[in-house]
């Protein structure tokens, strides 16, 4: 699978990733429309984003969720009816939702955030298996 990987040790909390993600996919810079979310606690940063585990695929009633050829879980916009089953059932809470479009959205490993990151804390890599180690700087760094 082609996935995003993040290293909290390198993150400076610039949040350029959130801005460029939201801008790319929703034409607005606000965090609520970003598929990567940065959190701060006591001066340290952490990130959450889809790790392409695929658990959401089976809960979708319209077959809108699927693995593409690169092993990325994608949302078919014209099939999504906005039921939020995937939002509720994502084991990592990283399926997000746009209420005005009634559309589920998530990280699709496009790499825009990688380019925008001023401190090299993000990469796109190829892996066989996935876990939240991808949020911990333990894979690809």
């Amino acid at each position, binding site marked *: 699978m082609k996935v995003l990987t993040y290293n909290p040790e390198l993150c400076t909390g610039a949040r350029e990733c959130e801005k460029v993600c939201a801008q790319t996919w929703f034409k607005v810079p606000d965090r609520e429309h970003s598929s990567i979310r940065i959190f701060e606690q006591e001066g340290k940063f952490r990130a959450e984003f889809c790790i392409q585990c695929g658990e959401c695929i*089976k*809960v*979708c*009633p*319209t*077959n809108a969720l699927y693995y593409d050829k690169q092993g990325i879980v994608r949302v078919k916009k*014209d099939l*999504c*009816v*906005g*039921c*939020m*089953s995937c*939002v*509720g*059932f994502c084991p990592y*809470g990283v399926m997000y*939702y746009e*209420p*005005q*479009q*009634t559309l589920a959205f998530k990280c699709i490993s496009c790499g825009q955030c990688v380019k925008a990151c001023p401190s090299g804390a993000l990469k796109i890599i190829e892996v066989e298996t996935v876990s939240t180690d991808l949020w911990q700087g333990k894979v690809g760094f």
Partner: protein
Amino acid sequence: MKAVTRNVLAEFDYTVPTIERGYTNQTLYVNVGNGEIKAKPVTEEMKLKFTGGKGFDLWLLWHAVKDTTRWHDPENEIVISTGPCGGITQYPGSGKSLVTTISPTTDIVTDCNTGGHFGPYLKFAGWDAIELQGIAERDVVVVVDAIRGKVTIEEMPEAPKDTHLLGAWLTEVLAEKPEDRYYIATVTSGQAAEHSLLGVLNFSLFDRKRNDLRYKQAARGGPGTVFRHKRILALVVRSRPFDGKTNNPADLARLARVGADMQREVAKWDPVQNRMRNRGTPYLVGIMSDYDLLPVHNHKFGGHPKAHAINGAYWESRFTQDLPDGCWYGCTVACAHAVDGFELKTGPYKGQKVIVDGPEYETAAGVGTNCGIFDGDAILEINFYCDTYGIDTISYGATVAFLMECYEAGILDKEKTEGLELRFGNAEASLELLHRIAAGTPFGKIAGMGVHKLKAYLIEHYGADAQFVHDIGMENKGMEYSMYIAKESLAQQGGYALTNKGPQHDEAWLIFMDQVNNQIPTFEDKAEALHYFPLFRTWFGLCGFCKLPWNDVVDPKNALSDEPHKIPHHVQNYVDIFSAVTGREITKEDIIHMSERVYNFQRVFNIRLGKGLREHDMPPYRALGPVTEEEYLSRQERYDKQLREWLGLDPSTMTLQEKMAAHRKYRYERYEMLMDAVYERRGWTRNGVPTLEKLQELGIDYPEVVEVVKKHL
């Protein structure tokens, strides 16, 4: 698209309106007798007083019929509506359809609550409700086509009759592309509905994972019989792609917040609570038996050692797992499970591998345990044939159990039953009887009358003892009882018989609260519960909601709330959703007011049609206590103890007959006291009639409503 003969008898062109905050603001009227098809406006008064769903159904039906209308008269209608929240996707259980008609078994209004796609798709096709009136000369199909902007009444002579064939056939005929199938929904019945008063309506849903059709049922009170009597073979809607915005809700962000919260709650808690997503409603079979609440042998007993052979874990092993089995999009409680590739062993479809929708708990208990049948395959086969033939599994199970007890009591024998040995446990005989009802054999038609008319038949034709037959015939107002033993729960006795349409548990399911948890010990407590819960539960049917997400998955934090049995967090969810969809800000108290109008209106409607009074709310004795010596002796310790504790009697000095008589007298007296307390709490007279003050308070004191109650005040 399949090319078949289609004879269009009548047609009506229309433009699909934009839905405004959950309403299309028009209803569709179709007369299959004279071909009249028209649009009727939805008024602000209708929305304010009757909300939608069952409320709209009752309002439209009231104006369509006369005081003397019977189920088979042409002016009787079948009315179907979903409600303003029906068809949203953002919250589990938001796609229910409500069906009303004058019932062939009760002669008053019955109302049914079903899943499936028809109600929401009807709304997306432009209609808040549909009225079907009249009687056609030959079988017709009514098609509501949103894509062509046309409603038609057509003859389709090549169409099959039974649901599992007919639904697929119609979908093939009407779908131009494969994806069109997702947006087609059918309402169909089957052969049995032509020979029985217990006919059911099957509401389809297209299951995208299985790539096949599935069916839910509008079951109680015989709407399928009315449908087929009108010579309606099918009702179909052809709708368009939709999503969570199609209802044009007032506040999408608010809707999304509540929806996301509930979806997470279901994901977290269902796996460790009722496991609805894995086993559905039959999780109850084993539990009910353990609490002595599972009907066995025509409600004689409450449990059986074999019950756990068909408990939740068993059905989990039979149901195909890991499929999104919601009966409307977005339902993650997802209890609509199925057994796939089930090979039928009997009947005209023997050898076919089919999808069996179910069984639900009510079916497993009704056609299973209540008839002494504990075999999963037998239950599945009876379930399938009831569905496709168009007969209600609860009423069918209750009727067969009644016949079995009559057979074992010697009232019936092989000569009278066309050779069928109708003994408890004889699954083959039950299945064969089902095929005979479908075929319309003489005994099939007799059995197909249901418990109420069967009692009179057995008394008149076979000299059955009237007292015995009335005691064991589990029906009230003409409708068969659903599958809970109410003998030890006074509240549930009222929950069954103090209902509008008949003893279906949808109004009040109070058994656990009463018998197990003892949360409503006094008459006043029970009366309060029998005021609140029927009204609270009625509300779901005004809006298009399913009740299961309300109380079948609950965050344990609920135990810390001020009224945990009401599940306040979920009640607040519903307040938020209704307000977010309609733009009409309501409170939780408004929920009760909205329902109380419709509930009282339905009570007056019953009175108008000839029931709805105190005498009609009296249960058969088996619903209150032990009818036979066998029943008394099966729980002797409990019943003897009750004689001591309740009546201060010494059972050791009494004969069995004396003990049974004392119980009977006491239980009926207690029930009458409950009736008094409940009627008073509801604002009704001692005879069960809503007072003028109550009607005025509710704003439903229309002249024609007042005219009905005046005769009784």
